[in-house]
């Protein structure tokens, strides 16, 4: 059974003009001890999805439907105090900028002790030992617990916020773009810390990112989001090497590979639809070079073969579409409204 299983989740932001359907039917699962990459562009709903699972949506956001079953319990049905019991202990969160996780006016030790003693119920001596252990676990010298966050480099801050998230031994950590703001070398080192913790602690993670290369490096499975919907998901190798959705195909050609060919890169023209009034058909149709009449009229159902899920009317033709998607001319022909 999965550690986390998200079924048809709907998250709306209430605005004066009506609800914005930021997440509009997301379905995926995370197995114990595995890393799921949640990938997509800004505004596709991936961060909202992470926050909804964590139960930390902004004021205007609310879960409008679906379920989030974690360790056998539906988080959507829990009261706030029941959720608080789970947060940190079973489920924790690493925000995009470590500065948001860390209190700038408190030394790291005080922040660690607060979580370990108040939330975890540890005595001071045990909490001090655990704080040092956590720092070592993420590759930081425990001496630095005496420092303030501003004395840390960006990579060190991100390590400290990982240590904080792991304080009470959670089973699942949701990390929102944890390496995006970091330089490549530091980025790689932080990803290596995360992979190491995954295997040593049997930790599961949801890694929210816009970068397919980060997914390829660190994740076991991937869910590709577009305009509030998971359009494709499966094992990373399967999805990267044999993508079934044209959006995934586009993403794999949109950015340079440092060792690959230097041929023309392929942009996906246009931008995602307004989720206040999402289109009736497939949400990617306006930017898709393979869209047909049916795609504009009717939303494609999610179809699963083996472990590979896709929501595309033309998934049967994927091998031919993949070949066409590699050519810049294919995408240049799309003129989004």
């Amino acid at each position: 059974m999965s550690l986390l299983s998200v079924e048809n989740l709907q998250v709306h932001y209430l605005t004066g003009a009506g609800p914005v359907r930021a997440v509009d039917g997301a379905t995926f699962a995370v197995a114990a001890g595995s890393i799921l990459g949640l990938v997509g562009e800004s505004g596709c709903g991936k961060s909202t999805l992470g926050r909804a699972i964590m139960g930390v949506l902004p004021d205007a956001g609310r879960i409008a439907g679906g379920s989030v079953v974690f360790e056998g319990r539906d988080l959507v049905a829990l009261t706030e105090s029941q959720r608080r019991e789970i947060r940190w202990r079973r489920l924790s969160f690493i925000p995009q900028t470590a500065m948001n996780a860390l209190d700038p006016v408190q030394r790291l030790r005080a922040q660690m002790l607060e979580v370990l003693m108040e939330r975890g119920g540890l005595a001071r001596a045990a909490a001090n030992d655990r704080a040092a252990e956590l720092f070592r676990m993420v590759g930081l010298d425990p001496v630095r617990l005496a420092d303030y966050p501003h004395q840390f480099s960006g990579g060190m801050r991100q390590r400290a916020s990982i240590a904080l998230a792991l304080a009470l031994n959670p089973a699942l950590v949701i990390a929102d773009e944890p390496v995006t703001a970091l330089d490549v070398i530091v980025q790689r080192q932080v990803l290596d810390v995360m992979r190491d913790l995954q295997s040593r602690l049997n930790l599961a993670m949801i890694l929210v990112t816009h970068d397919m290369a980060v997914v390829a490096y660190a994740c076991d499975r991937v869910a590709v989001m577009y305009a509030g919907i998971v359009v494709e998901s499966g094992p990373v190798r399967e999805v990267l090497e044999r993508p079934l959705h044209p959006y995934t195909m586009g993403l794999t050609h949109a950015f340079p590979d440092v060792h690959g060919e230097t041929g023309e890169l392929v942009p996906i023209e246009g931008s995602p639809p307004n989720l206040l009034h999402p289109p009736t058909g497939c949400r990617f149709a306006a930017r898709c070079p393979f869209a047909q009449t049916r795609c504009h009229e009717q939303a494609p159902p999610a179809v699963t073969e083996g472990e590979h899920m896709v929501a595309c009317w033309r998934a049967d033709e994927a091998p031919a579409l993949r070949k066409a998607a590699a050519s810049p001319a294919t995408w240049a022909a799309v003129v989004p409204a």
Partner: protein
Amino acid sequence: MSAVIEARGLGKTFRTGRRTVHAVQDVSLSVSAGEALGIVGESGCGKTTTARMLLRLEEPTAGQVLFEGEDITHRRAAALLPFRARAQLVFQNPFDALNPRFTIRRTLAEPLRNFGIPEAEHAARIDAVMGRVRLTPASAWLDRFPHELSGGQLQRVVLARALIPGPRLIVADEPVSMLDVSVRAGILNLLRAARDELGLAAIYISHDLALIRYVCERTVVMYLGRIVEEGPTAELIAAPRHPYTRALVAAVPVPRVDQDRAALPIRGSLSDSPLGGTGCAFRDRCPHAMPRCEAEAPALREAGQARRVACHLEEGAPS
């Protein structure tokens, strides 16, 4: 080919309280018309300060900047105006590079007015540059405000504003890092096309070697204020010579499942490195450091065809 921009022994020293920080030291480089040079390194390596000195947004404390052969190192602000029209910066963040109260038309007319281009030429120039950045028909865009445009469209306007005075040099500092992956390729393709079609000299600054490889034939790698390696980009990536370049290349994530996940050949982090003194600035993180690296800083020297490396390991190595 004569250089559009050239730096000779460029340096910048900041004094903060009692400490002196050598942000850039002894940087020499040149870029010809139609050529693109990449400057690669981590935050704090001096790449942005170097670019700001080349554009004379910052006055160097050592060395010289030559633009089309003329020394502009210490030229006063008022006398720099003609240079400003010919050397343009493409801003990193399109979301705050543009005045939100200006229409696109006014955004593009502003530099023309500043550089004294006759009013009669404005409309034709604006139309031409909008075509170059593929915002067509121009009439559909010119009366809009920045908030009505997507990130990719805004970055096209930012590029148009840089191109409209007719520069010979453009400097782009992380030109796509704030944009979504799906639109980055479009901007990079436009930058490549503008350089090729207009014969511009271009300098790209990034921490991302994959991006640099796509747009630059030649690359310099900077570490703590100094150039540690220079060479044709493809060769530099295929066969890096400096231990830092090797780590940088190994760290670039690749979108493939089968890849090398071995630990990086580098130790510690940037903040562990010595801030001054003698010796190689990379020695504390270098897996090959030897006593000599502590005693003496390696000079940047020729290491084969069009390549330069600053590393003691390279001395005596076949070039």
